[in-house]
Structure formats: structure tokens, C-alpha cells
């Protein structure tokens, strides 16, 4: 332990602690900008500088370790002048259009400018005039706003192992740009959107499509149908000032009707359906000697990743479409028929925790209903904006039920939203299908949590099935390298592109810390526990779907509407 004095307060902290951590422990707040609690320290914005007795130079609190007897001052005139000057420098090279910015009121630079009451910036306003990049359907870049903190690069390269972003140029001209200074679309970007969460400002964001929804709602010839992904409910409340997980599902549904959606259905329905199709696919592969291990296919960021980095392993991917795309194909066939609605009039909107889903819906192969299966994908954040605009008071809003035929779901579908959930849901069903016995305890705790790689073994009537779960693409890489090397011991691998699974997806409320992801994960299991039915094969509406339309898992209709295959992207990678 080291004894240190910070602003006159004496404390003792573990050796190697930074000034920042030491100050935090005694309630002294030091401002930061490039610092990210779950990333490597950067030390490059210099906003956290402090005076250390005996040193001519100011010390960056985020990187400077304490030493025995260190005396730190965090609020001297010298420190305040340095911080204000640094903020003025950054702001003088940052567009002053906070009012129009996607991160207005949710921007670390804006907050600091307010805290340090930057009024008349003595430096002349000079922005770089760089073009925005709207080359992908999911993520845009506004490099003029970039403050070069490097957090997106770390998210992309270290957490996701995608390496789409890097620094280009030098000095005042340095910018964070896609590989080879090209467009995002030409880079290996998988559109997971983790860079958006990492960005302290509005330099990267989701491609907003709210206006398309408003136009469809305004169009009397369109019947606007929506599906809600499993991970959305636990997080949507954060967008309207509620605690994580506290937005009741029926109030959420009611809110969506208030916005003007004609029918509110649930992606959870097709999550349950996915378990039946994918579970049976796994059993078929096990029985018939198909390609193993089989990996899941629900995460479109993961699909983009394997198409880019492991195209030789595409046969390992389940042929099941994602729940979003299964829903899209069924909404304009089975459901339209059930509801006696002309499918040409259906405008199918999905509400997703994900940015890559915007791309997935635009894939040319996703038209098996005879139309574009999913017309529009909105993120949790975009729905949050609509809710705020609408002024709905969720405390006073009465709840409402989902519409029929594709609105029922089980706890097994709910947990799709967390890493390990697809695996647990599959095991709940596969166990009962194979053994013919009732699974008394449906909780497979070993599959749960934010840990990067989890593994488990399940005994199915004497056959031991080995499974693994990865979240975050750097973790996926570890498992796929084993598959490529022929040393993978697993039969079934669940992969979610985003850390923590979909609850940490690129379209969720801006998520700075993993602690927030864990909070959402915990709420997912609370929701699962509260479900009366917790096994996908017991979903009554799914049963009806098979009885009346699909007839059997992996059958002819399923093959046509619910399965697909993916192809190599042949992109330049590092």
C-alpha cells in the first residue's frame, strides 16, 4: 500500500494504483475524456492532468501511478488553466453543432465543456471539413467530430479483432479512418457498432432511419408491423429515464402502439422457432455426420465476421436465418395469411439492439417471402428518440398485449438477449427431444455471464455433447482458430459478436461500461424466471405454426423460408 495525499486528504491505496483510481477512492473527481473504464489507459487527451509535488510537469492522472508519500493537487489554478486550455484547443477543432448532433446531451466532450464553463474560446474555430462516411447501411462516420482518443480503435481491434479502424496522417491532420483510408464499406467492418459505444462524442453513430418509419405510419396504404428483439426491453427504459430492466413489457407494447404501429409482434416468437430449427439441425448433424462444430447464426455481426475472416468455415454455420429474418419471411406469408392481410401492404419493422441488423435486412438473399422480408430496422436508441419525442409518460401508460399468432414467447426466447442464452435455450429443448424426459431444472448456470468464453458438457442419453459460448469477436477468433486447426473439441458453439451478447449490441443505449452490460444480463434472467413457459418447444403459437404451416422442423417450408447460406466477402484484411 502507498500513502498518498490528494487535495489535502490522506489515504492509502494499493501500489500501482493510478492517481485517478486513488482520487476516485476518496471521492475526488478528476475529469477524463480519452479514458475508458474497460479499456487500456490511453493518456492522450491530457484533460486529467494534476499537479504532483516536486514535479515541474503536470501528471496525467489516468496513467500516472502513485508512489509512497505522493502529494497530488487536482484543483489548483495551474491545473484548471491547463484543463481549460486543452478543452478550448479540442473544441476549437470540433464542429459546434451540438444541437444537431446524434450525441447531443450524451457527449463526454459536451459535458466537460459545460463543467469547465467554456464560453468565449480564444482560439479561432477551425474544423477540418472532412466528409461524412455513409457507405454502410448501419454505421456512419463523421470524422470532423473525432477527437482522436483511440477508443473506437481499441474496441474494433482488441475487443472485436476486426481491425477496420486505424489512425491515418500525423499531427493536426491525424484522423481515425477505416483501413487504407477508404470507406467503412470497403473495410473489414462487421457493423457490430461497438465503436459507437466506445466513442465519447458523435464521430460514429447508427444510420438513423426514423423518418422512414414516420412516412410508413403516415401512409394509409401501409400496415406497419413490428417485432421486438429479446434484448430491447431490458434497455429501452434507459432511454426514457427509467432504471435498467424496469420497463414492463406490456407498457412497452402500449408505447409502440402509441407511436402508430398497427401490429406489435415479438422476435421472441421466432427465437423459440429458431431453437426448434437449429436444435433439430444440430441433432441431424450429430446423427448424420454433418460438419461440426455447428455454430449459431443469429448474430449478423458474427456472420459478417466469419464471411470476412473465416470464409473457409462457413459450412460450420447453422443454416438457420436469424430470428429477425425468420420473422420477416413469416410475417409476409404465414402471418399475413392468418390475418387476411395483403402482404404487399405490410411494412415490416424490427426493433433491434443491433446495428448490423440494418445490414442483414438489406442482404439480397433476404427476400424469401416474395418481398423484402424486413423493410426497416430501428435500433433501441432510435425507438428511444421516438419515445422522447412523443412525450409518452410511461409511468401512467396502461399496458397492452401483443398481437396474435407471432407474439407469444417463452423464457427460452427471452434469454437470447444475453450471451449463452441461445445455448441454454437449445439445451432446454434438445435435452427433452433426445431423452424424452422432462427437464426439471431448466437453469444451465454455466452458460450465463459476461465471461468471454464459456464451455459446458451435457449428457444426452449417454452421448456427451460439448458446447462452447463466445461473446466479443476476439473471443470468437480463439474458438474459430481451433476449428480451423481441427482441434476444436466442441459440437456446438454459440457466438455473439457483441460483448455480453445482444444486451450490449451496437444499437443499445450508449453503453460505456461492462458493468452496465452485466446489469442488463441480470434483468434478462429475471424476465426468464417470470415466464410461465420456459422451453421453446412448448410455445403454443410455435406449435400452431408447425401444425398449420411448417409441418416439421427442417421441412420443405422451413427450408424455403427459414434457412439460408452465406458467402465469402473477399475483403482486404490486415
Amino acid at each position, binding site marked *: 500500500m502507498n500513502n498518498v495525499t490528494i487535495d489535502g486528504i490522506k489515504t492509502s491505496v494499493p501500489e500501482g494504483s493510478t492517481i485517478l483510481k486513488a482520487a476516485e477512492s476518496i471521492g475526488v473527481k478528476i475529469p477524463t475524456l480519452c479514458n475508458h473504464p474497460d479499456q487500456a489507459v490511453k493518456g492522450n487527451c*491530457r484533460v486529467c*492532468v494534476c499537479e504532483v509535488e516536486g514535479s515541474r510537469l503536470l501528471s496525467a492522472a489516468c496513467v500516472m501511478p502513485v508512489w509512497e508519500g505522493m502529494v497530488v493537487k487536482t484543483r489548483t489554478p495551474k491545473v484548471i488553466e491547463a484543463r481549460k486550455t486543452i478543452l478550448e484547443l479540442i473544441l476549437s477543432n470540433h464542429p459546434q453543432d451540438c444541437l444537431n448532433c446524434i450525441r447531443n446531451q450524451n457527449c463526454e466532450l459536451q459535458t466537460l465543456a459545460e463543467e469547465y464553463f467554456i464560453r468565449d474560446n480564444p482560439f479561432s474555430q477551425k474544423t477540418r471539413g472532412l466528409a461524412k462516411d455513409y457507405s454502410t447501411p448501419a454505421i456512419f462516420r463523421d470524422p470532423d467530430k473525432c477527437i*482522436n482518443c483511440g477508443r473506437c480503435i481499441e474496441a474494433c481491434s482488441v475487443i472485436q479483432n476486426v481491425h477496420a479502424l486505424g489512425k491515418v496522417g500525423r*499531427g493536426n491532420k*491525424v484522423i481515425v479512418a477505416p483501413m487504407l483510408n477508404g470507406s467503412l464499406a470497403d473495410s473489414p467492418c462487421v457493423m457490430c457498432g461497438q465503436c459507437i459505444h466506445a466513442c465519447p462524442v458523435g464521430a460514429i453513430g447508427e444510420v438513423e432511419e426514423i423518418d422512414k418509419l414516420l412516412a410508413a405510419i403516415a401512409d394509409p396504404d401501409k400496415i406497419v408491423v413490428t417485432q421486438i428483439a429479446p434484448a430491447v426491453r431490458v434497455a429501452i427504459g434507459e432511454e426514457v429515464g427509467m432504471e435498467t430492466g424496469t420497463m414492463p413489457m406490456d407498457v412497452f407494447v402500449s408505447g409502440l402502439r402509441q407511436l402508430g404501429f398497427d401490429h406489435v409482434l415479438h422476435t421472441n416468437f421466432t427465437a423459440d422457432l429458431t431453437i426448434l430449427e437449429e436444435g433439430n439441425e444440430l441433432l441431424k448433424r450429430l446423427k448424420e455426420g454433418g460438419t461440426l462444430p455447428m455454430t449459431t447464426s443469429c448474430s449478423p455481426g458474427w456472420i459478417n465476421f466469419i464471411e470476412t475472416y473465416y470464409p473457409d468455415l462457413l459450412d460450420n454455420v447453422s443454416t438457420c436465418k436469424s430470428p429477425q429474418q425468420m420473422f420477416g419471411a413469416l410475417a409476409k406469408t404465414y402471418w399475413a395469411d392468418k390475418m387476411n392481410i395483403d402482404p404487399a401492404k405490410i411494412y415490416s419493422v424490427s426493433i433491434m439492439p443491433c446495428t448490423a441488423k440494418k445490414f442483414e435486412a438489406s442482404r439480397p438473399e433476404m427476400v424469401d417471402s416474395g418481398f423484402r422480408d424486413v423493410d426497416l430496422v430501428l435500433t433501441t436508441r432510435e425507438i428511444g428518440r421516438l419515445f422522447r419525442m412523443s412525450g409518452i409518460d410511461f409511468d401512467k401508460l396502461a399496458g397492452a398485449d401483443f398481437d396474435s399468432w407471432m407474439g407469444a414467447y417463452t423464457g427460452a426466447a427471452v434469454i437470447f438477449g444475453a450471451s449463452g442464452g441461445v445455448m441454454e435455450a437449445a439445451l432446454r429443448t434438445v435435452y427433452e427431444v433426445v431423452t424424452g424426459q422432462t427437464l426439471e431444472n431448466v437453469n444451465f448456470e454455466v452458460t450465463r455471464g459476461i465471461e468471454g468464453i464459456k464451455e459446458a458438457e451435457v449428457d444426452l442419453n449417454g452421448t456427451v455433447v460439448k458446447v462452447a459460448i463466445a461473446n466479443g469477436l476476439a473471443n470468437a477468433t480463439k474458438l474459430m482458430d481451433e476449428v480451423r486447426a481441427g482441434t476444436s473439441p466442441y459440437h456446438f458453439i454459440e457466438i455473439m459478436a457483441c460483448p455480453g451478447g445482444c444486451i450490449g449490441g451496437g444499437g443499445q443505449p450508449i453503453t460505456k461500461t461492462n458493468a452496465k452490460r452485466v446489469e442488463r444480463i441480470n434483468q434478462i434472467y429475471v424476465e426468464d424466471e417470470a415466464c410461465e413457459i420456459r422451453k421453446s418447444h412448448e410455445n403454443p403459437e410455435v406449435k400452431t405454426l408447425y401444425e398449420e404451416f411448417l409441418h416439421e422442423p427442417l421441412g420443405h417450408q422451413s427450408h424455403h423460408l427459414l434457412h439460408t447460406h452465406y458467402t465469402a466477402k473477399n475483403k482486404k484484411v490486415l
Partner: protein
Amino acid sequence: MAEEMRIVLRNYGKIDPLNIDEYIAAGGYKALEKAKGMNQIDLIEEVKKSNLRGRGGAGFNCGQKWFFAYQTNADQKYVVCNADEGEPGTYKDRLIMQGDPQSVLEGMAVCGYAIGANKGFIYCRGEYPYVVDILNQAIDQAKAKGVLGDFDIEVRMGAGAYVCGEETALIESIEGHRGEPRFKPPFPGVEGLWGKPTIINNVETFANIPVIVDKGGDWYAAIGAPSYPGTKVLTLTGDVNNKTFFEVPTSTTIREVVYGLGGGVAGGKKFKAVQIGGTSGGFIPESLLDTAISFDAMSAIGATLGSGAVFVMDESRDMVDVVAEITRFFEHESCGKCAPCREGTARMNELVGKIKDGKGSAADIALLKKLGGVMSIACLCGLGQAAPAPVLTTLGHFAADYEDKLV
């Protein structure tokens, strides 16, 4: 009258640099042999005793630095020679490498033995391709002779970035990354190249080592200024009669260098200023010329010894013109990693340019002072911390040059 004293340039012009036999005949590699006969701690103590301080500009005690690397346990350690001589007006490292490359290799090998490293790198400035050839030939000859023992040396070439002379940016560059400095601590002696304990010394520092080992730390410590003993190689440029190089004891004064060895201001003009230590050095007026060319004496007057470049300016020079070139240089050479340097160097150049163009005001001068003050204490690395020095020292000593141009 000041006189030259050649320690690091002891063989310069006397031996064929591409013939190792001549270096050996002149006593070369005896120091390495002697060093290997000592135990590591005694060797490091001897270097400490010499009080040799780094000749790259930071002036850190060389033996102390070696001791840090020595006492850090690691399966691999490295010795790196900083030959990224990018400081405008400086060419001392080139002289040493061209004239006596083996002395550098020997100094590195002594260091390797002292800290327990078997691998060395010379990071040579990209603009010195012919020096790279000389170094490679010298290394081949030393390997063929077997004089380096199991110590291997490889030459790596820079790509033109000034910041890569900063030791941690240099490490990043050798590792194949962008040349951006790391924050310290950890210092390279503990965690350097590929995370391993690494000693980085300047060419001139290494060239001193064989002589120190040979003649002893006490002998060296008695030369020049006691707190920064030994000699310094200076390169004279600008409005001075003798535009050449000298190696002088560190007790020599600036006046002796400019007027004695340098032969005074060229063309019979009056002296105005001298900038010492390279582009980021402070500007020194006539009244401070009796300062010694030693690290601490220079610091005491708000200047730096730096690389030992001596840039003389006569009365016809306008300080704002000169400084505008310097601020342009730093805007160009900032790596862009830390905010105060990335934005600050550009703003400094903008403000100086504005004043130079006759559009500046007293408020701009005040802003320059505030900006310079913040940069010099808040930037991540030495580049940003030192970049304002020419601006701040000229604002101090030559304020009239600025004030004459204000609107």
C-alpha cells in the same frame, strides 16, 4: 581561449572507419574485453562514477539508467542506439557513425554485457541511408572478427518522423507501429522494446563508453562541468564564421564557442541570438553568453543543451520570422497523439504567423504565452513540452520583435 578535446571523436579522421583492424590498432575493443573481465555491478558502478549523462538531450545519468535495466529480471533485454538524428542543425551522430562506427558498436556491447542483453538495435535516421551502409559493414566486420561475442546488433531505419527520436516513439517504430510516444512510467529500462527491459542511449553516449571503461570513471568525471562532465560535440550553423563541428569540455561557455572556436559572427555583423540544442532549444541573448555548455547551466537560464546544435543569428534576423519557421516545423512533426500538442502546435503556428503578417494583437501574445505555458507542462512527450520554448524565450528576450508587428 577554448580548446577542443576529442573523446568521442578520438578516432575521427585518423582511422579508416571501414577497416576494423585500424580501430583495433588504435586500442579498440580493449574496453569491451576489460568490461567483460569485471562483474556487471562493478562495471555499472564505474559508469555511474563517471557521471556520464545522456547526450541525446534528456541528460539522465547513464549508469543509473543501466542499473534499472540490470536489476529488472527478464528472459530478454535489449540495447538500442538512438541514431535518429532529426534535430535540424545537428549532425554529430552522423560524424561519429561515419568516422568511427566501431566505437558505437563497442559501447553498445559494453552496455549489453552490463545489463545482460544479447541483442542490440541501431535506429538510424531515414535520411542517412549511406550511414546505414557504413553501420552494416562495420557490424559485419565486427561479427567476422568475433569481437562482439554473443552480442548481436541490427540496424533499423527510420522513415522520416522527427518524433521517432523520442525514445518510446522509437520503440514503437522498431516494433512496426506508428511512431507515437508511450507514457512513462513504465520507463524503457523496465519495460521497453516488446515489453522487455531496454536501454536506449544516444550515439554520442555510447561512443563515450569505451573511453570511460578504459580510463576509468574518475578520469572522466574530472573533465568539464562537474554536474555534467565530459565533452559535448557541437555543430555550428547560421551566421557564424566557422560553420563546422567541435568537441569541447562541458565547462566551455557559449561565448567561447561562438567567438572563439566559431570565429564570431559572420560578415562583421553584430550578434543577436543563439539557439542551442536544436529546433526546440531556447533563444539566448548576448547577456547570457557566459553560460557553460552544460546541462544544468543551460537549464538555469531557461534554455537547453539538447543535441548540441548551435545556431547563431546576427542582428539582421527578425526573431518572429525565425520562430515562424520553427512553429511550422512543430506543427508538421507533431505525431498527433496527445491533444495539447496536436492542437497546440497548430495554434501556435497560426498565432505566430498572424503576428508575422502584421495582423496580431496584444491578446494574441497573451494567448501564445498561455498556450506555451500549458503545452510545456501538459503534453505527453518531450516534443510537445519543448516545442513552445523558442516562442516563449523569444517573447521574453526579444519582445520588441513581436511588438513592432502588432496592429
